């Protein structure tokens, strides 16, 4: 059993120099981006956390802060100091069961904080349970930080929004293409996304490293593998399950429920083999960002945006201009008619499955690169993917992309006005509002009856 209490420290700091063009190799001397906490792989209970200055975007790490843990009787049972990347780990002595249901108090040593910071509360009490990681925030009083202007903040969020949008667009495009040609509302599409993240992880964990001219490219190979193997997995999905169901004449609602079963099945298989913890690839974990004007941008974010846009442009061009693409759109429009005009509908569907799943796999690997992943990363973005597809108009190709950008940018930019914990809520509400105004979606067409 692995029980983790996560303590996240939110601090406001002044006086830290904004990172200059920090080079990847030498940039550690400047302020480092706040790293993700890596859960430990043993059976102890740990209090994990990171000390971050959240007034900065991205948050910056604060090293050298002492954190201590006391039990309910006031005995100190652990202490740690935050590392260069802001993280700290305090292992609790004894077995997991002993700690279950007990309360612990986490305290920040204020004297070790940078001088200009005054947290409103410097200690918090939490109860260990097995259900969830727990987040403990230490909000700061107004220490008079220089808040970046709304515009700068919006631009910075735009970067995150674009990264998420292109990834979401790839997943949504696959979902929409499969829906368009087969009518299947595929609840297991999220598992195609997770599959990509896992393939890249598998490559990453292979012993040794893959290099070209001394530069390590393990993760790049992993991302490519996610795309290719993802496509193969899509073919397998179709050949082993969906094609036989189609030829049996299984109804669409029944197929939708089958996809729910498949989603449950695959998700738990993934957890069986990959575990429940959240993971990162070995490369590009903590890379210092470039500063462009007031905006911070990491190289990997730029690569993801450019690569994502390139893939989207390529896919849509294929659909728009090639024979196969036209056939795909014809099948989307009216399978019966397409079949009557000599298009091999089953072949088109097969290709769409391979292409859609490859895109989903790529999306999963890129999600893993940008924000880390776990066994249900795809399931978690499934709803947003659906939202994007429905928002743009079910089954339309441009609709999926437009919808993904609307959802992706909206989730990030909405944090300007609302608490970040509500950003997904905002996006899903947007979906409902748009359906009220334009039921067929932004780019969809109304249908004929009778």
């Amino acid at each position, binding site marked *: 059993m692995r029980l983790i209490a996560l303590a996240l420290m939110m601090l406001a700091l002044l006086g830290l120099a904004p990172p200059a063009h920090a080079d990847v190799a030498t940039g550690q001397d400047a302020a480092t981006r706040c790293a993700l906490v890596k859960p430990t792989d043993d059976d102890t209970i740990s209090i994990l956390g990171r000390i971050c200055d959240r007034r900065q975007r991205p948050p910056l790490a604060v090293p050298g802060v002492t954190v201590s843990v006391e039990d309910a009787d006031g005995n100190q049972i652990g202490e740690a100091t935050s590392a260069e990347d802001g993280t700290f780990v305090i292992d609790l002595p004894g077995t997991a069961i002993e700690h279950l249901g007990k309360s612990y108090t986490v305290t920040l040593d204020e004297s070790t904080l940078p001088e200009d910071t005054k947290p409103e509360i410097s200690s918090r009490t939490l109860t260990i349970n097995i259900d969830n990681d727990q987040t403990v925030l230490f909000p700061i009083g107004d220490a008079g930080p220089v808040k970046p202007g709304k515009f700068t903040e919006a631009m910075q969020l735009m970067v995150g929004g674009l990264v998420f949008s292109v990834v979401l667009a790839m997943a949504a495009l696959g979902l929409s293409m499969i829906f368009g040609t087969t009518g299947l*509302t595929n609840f297991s599409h999220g598992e195609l996304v997770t599959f990509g993240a896992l393939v890249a992880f598998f490559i990453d964990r292979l012993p040794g490293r893959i290099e070209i001219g001394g530069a390590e490219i393990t993760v790049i190979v992993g991302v490519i593998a996610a795309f290719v193997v993802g496509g193969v997995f899509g073919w397998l999905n179709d050949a082993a399950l969906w094609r036989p169901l189609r030829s049996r004449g299984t109804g669409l609602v029944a197929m939708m429920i*089958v996809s729910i*079963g498949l989603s449950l099945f695959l998700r738990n298989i993934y*957890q069986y083999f990959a575990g429940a913890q959240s993971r990162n690839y070995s490369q590009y974990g903590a890379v210092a960002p470039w500063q462009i004007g007031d905006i911070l941008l990491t190289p990997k974010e730029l690569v993801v945006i450019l690569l994502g846009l390139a893939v989207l442009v390529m896919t849509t061009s294929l659909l728009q201009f090639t024979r196969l693409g036209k056939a795909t759109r014809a099948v989307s429009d009216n399978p019966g008619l397409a079949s009557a005009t000599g298009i091999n509908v089953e072949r088109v569907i097969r290709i769409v499955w391979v292409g859609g799943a490859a895109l989903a796999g790529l999306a999963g690997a890129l999600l893993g690169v940008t924000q880390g992943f776990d066994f249900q990363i795809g399931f978690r973005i499934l709803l947003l993917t659906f939202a994007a597809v429905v928002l743009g108009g*079910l089954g339309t190709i441009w609709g999926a992309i437009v919808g993904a950008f609307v959802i992706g940018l909206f989730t990030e930019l909405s944090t300007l006005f609302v608490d970040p*914990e509500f950003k997904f809520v905002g996006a899903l509400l947007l979906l409902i509002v748009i*359906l009220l105004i334009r039921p067929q979606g932004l780019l969809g067409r109304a249908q004929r*009856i009778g």
Partner: protein
Amino acid sequence: MDFNDLLTGSLQQALGPTAVVYCLAAIGLNIHFGYTGLLNFGQAGFMMVAGYAMVTMSTIWGGSLWLGVLVGIVLTVILALLLGVPTLRLRADYLAIVTIAAAEIIRQVISAAKFSDKLGGQDGLTGFIKPFREVNPFSEPVGIDGLVRWGPNDFWVMTVGWSLVAVSCLVVWLLMRSPWGRVLKSIREDEDAVRSLGKNVYAYKMQSLIIGGLFGALAGFVVALRSATVGPSFFATDVTFFAYTVLLIGGAARVLGPVAGAVIFWFLITVLDLFFGQATAGANPIIPASIMNDTQASLMRLIFMGLGLMLLMVFRPQGLFGDRRELAIDAR
């Protein structure tokens, strides 16, 4: 391997409070999906709103549980109206996506750290159960010696719960043999045909959504009473999917389908869980730890459930007891 343990544990779950919860949730889905053809994938949202309403009435405002039930019912109706207005005129799959999204919105908002003073955040709420347990007539464990046994609190929840199920089934039976039920079934078959005969399809779908949601609300109340707590993890998206599985096992559009489904579902799930639990337990487990450890063992029941749902839908879409000719879903 202790087979007696397997049987005892499984019977305990198959008839226990959790089976009641899923049975009531599935009765609601039966109205939505089985009879009307509405794809409500947000049943967990209805359950959550009702469960939290009941609990917060006493934890925040100091009201009675009965007041909580009343407020829960009112809020469930409002939720159904809010969901129905934008989606009931759209295609079936839109309703599916909007309801699943709405359930997630509800869950994220209720569990938000921002509202944790009042709603308990991720940890949920406790401290409301006393009035319910005070009227518990059972003080000793109840059961059949050597076969199955429940604690007095569980048995009290079961008594209340299965009574609710009995009344619910009666209501469903009365409704579905009436002309009202006939209109619902007709909408499931072809709503344009029903519209062409002068029926206000939109109003009927709304009524169906509300009534099915109310059965979901009952399930939400029982969740709270069963666990003496409510928390976001009780109302995850998968809860709705499990309830669908329960419904489909028993057979959609059959009055007693959800009852049979809930009992069978929880029996099988628990057998699997206990089996793999035992197989991986101890110093010298039957299945070596290198193949399956105890964490992995706990996943086996979900893996089998996913597989089972797929096979059921492909090979017996009418449920274990249904008649294929009167199959309610378009499984063709």
